[in-house]
């Protein structure tokens, strides 16, 4: 019984993490209809920035996290302004080729700069180990992830639903032409959203180093997970990807624990079945038009 609860807890933490990693992609892929397979590269960038700051320069972990966000967002906005924006109107094949190219470059570049071995971030002692709550083993680090990611999710939902920027974004996505007719600077809104999504990925990358490990092949290994979150979750709201990430996280942890021999088999099968059953995702409208 307790092991089930502990697994559930780990699964929720993992799912929350996946959500923070992938929600930027939910916007670019789901809302802007741009197939960005290089999304994991931004996450990896954030992770490595955090690792260098904490391990090599002795920054405290919590000070390095915002910087992981900022640096990934900065890389994101530079690339968006220089390269990505030319590709919004191109075919999906072009977008796929372009972003695969970027992914390959990022993998080799990080390999060159940091070496190909797996790295870990030195955590403060307060985050290590686990404690018992009514007999359920709760990892401190995972609890922190749930808190941070939960707060982020609520904040995101509030921003999207309540603020002026949120309504601008929704308008720009629904009909870019009409939105620009109302005086909304659509490219700017997209650029900002893209950068913010990259920043979140960077933060997710920094947080995930402890749980899934960080190496130069991160973007390739987790590409499928991000895509699953977005395609299964749909894109009508932020809730779809959120639920999809939770589902994926719990299924993945449970699958690895109870049927370890099947490996990632469970996840892929579930994904294919869901896509066949509901090609537009479990929740809401189609991701690609």
């Amino acid at each position: 019984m307790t092991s089930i609860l502990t697994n559930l807890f780990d699964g929720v933490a993992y799912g929350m993490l996946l959500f923070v990693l992938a929600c930027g992609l939910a916007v670019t892929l789901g809302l802007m209809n741009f197939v960005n397979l290089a999304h994991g590269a931004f996450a990896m960038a954030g992770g490595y920035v955090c690792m260098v700051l904490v391990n090599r320069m002795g920054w405290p972990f919590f000070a390095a996290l915002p910087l992981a966000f900022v640096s990934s967002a900065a890389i994101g906005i530079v690339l968006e302004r220089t390269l990505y924006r030319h590709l919004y109107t191109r075919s999906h094949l072009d977008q796929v080729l372009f972003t695969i190219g970027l992914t390959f470059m990022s993998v080799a570049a990080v390999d060159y700069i940091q070496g190909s071995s797996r790295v870990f971030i030195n955590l403060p002692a307060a985050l290590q180990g686990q404690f018992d709550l009514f007999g359920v083993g709760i990892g401190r680090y995972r609890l922190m992830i749930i808190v941070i990611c939960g707060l982020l999710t609520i904040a995101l939902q509030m921003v999207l639903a309540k603020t002026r920027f949120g309504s601008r974004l929704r308008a720009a996505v629904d009909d870019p032409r009409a939105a620009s007719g109302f005086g909304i600077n659509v490219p700017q809104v997209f650029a900002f959203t893209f950068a913010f999504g990259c920043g979140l990925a960077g933060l997710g990358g920094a947080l995930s180093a402890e749980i899934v490990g960080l190496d130069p092949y991160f973007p390739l290994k987790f590409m499928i997970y991000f895509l699953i979150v977005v395609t299964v979750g749909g894109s009508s709201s932020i809730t779809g990807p959120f639920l999809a990430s939770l589902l994926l996280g719990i299924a993945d942890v449970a699958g690895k624990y109870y049927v370890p021999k099947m490996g990632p088999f469970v996840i892929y099968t579930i994904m294919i079945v869901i896509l066949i059953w509901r090609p537009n995702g479990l929740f809401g409208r189609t991701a690609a038009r």
Partner: protein
Amino acid sequence: MSASSDVGYHAQRQARWHYGEAAFWLIVLACGFVFPSRYLIMTDILRLALFAMSLDLILGYAGIVSLGHAAFFGVGAYAAGLLALHGIINEPVLALVVAGLVAMVLGFATSFLVIRGVDLTRLMVTLGIALLLEALAERFSNITGGTDGLQGIEMQPIFGEIPFDMFGKTGFFYSLAVLFLLFLFARRVVHSPFGLSLRAIKNNPLRAAAIGIPVNRRLIAIYTLAAFYAGIAGALFTQTTAIASLDVFAFERSADLMLVLVIGGTGYLYGGLIGAVLFRMLQELFSTITPQYWQFWIGLVLVAIVLIGRQRLHRWMLYVPNLVIRQIAGRKAVVAAPESDA
């Protein structure tokens, strides 16, 4: 002349063999005699060319973007390896065909998943299938040999007469023969009314359905055929290298394949062949410059190709040949730039 006979006339003209094509195959054959010390790399290029041709059939002609074409390559590779390892079918040509058929069955089964949904769902499903097979191959390591791969494969002589030699001479001519035969068949297919209907589907599925083309059935047929080709390519891989390991399913293989096709150009069959040569040459070049990080440069090439634009790039590449052809054969005889893609 009525419009319909006009279309037929152009289609027939397109389907006719040109001198350039004959020259191309003669050059390929000549390579086999001119560079006897390079059989291994040349065989590698031929395999890649066949694999790329397979992707061209679905991407260039039917407009299906696949990120998991390595699935069929891998199934073909393991099928050929297992057949040879356990001595089920010792004759290589027969084993090749059987391995291709196994991949074809998988292609047929998965085609129903692929024709559903839009580009994005297709990307996901094809990628998912390849990953699924990789996970399966890893899981059933007692059959596939797991991460070590299949080892100790010994190939019997072709037709019981021509043994594989250690320099790869047999392997090269064997691969070349297979490639040429399959090319002839593919050429016949894409210039048939069936092939023309595929192009119609690629340009506009809705309109194609409106003029009475059974869209789904055509897509299933071409996807199945492409799976057969990819399976043969995989089987050739196992037969000529005598190994089959998990990386036959790897995502990088599918991604590289896209690059091969993009370099060569889609939608005219020779794209895969030319792309395979250029890709291997690029890879060799990059890995002599930076042995460990050649992937970076490959990625850069991809990014550059997309940013410059594939159409423009092919126009540039055809500029000099067209200039020469114009001088010799007059104004009208030019090599057209390949069609645009999905």
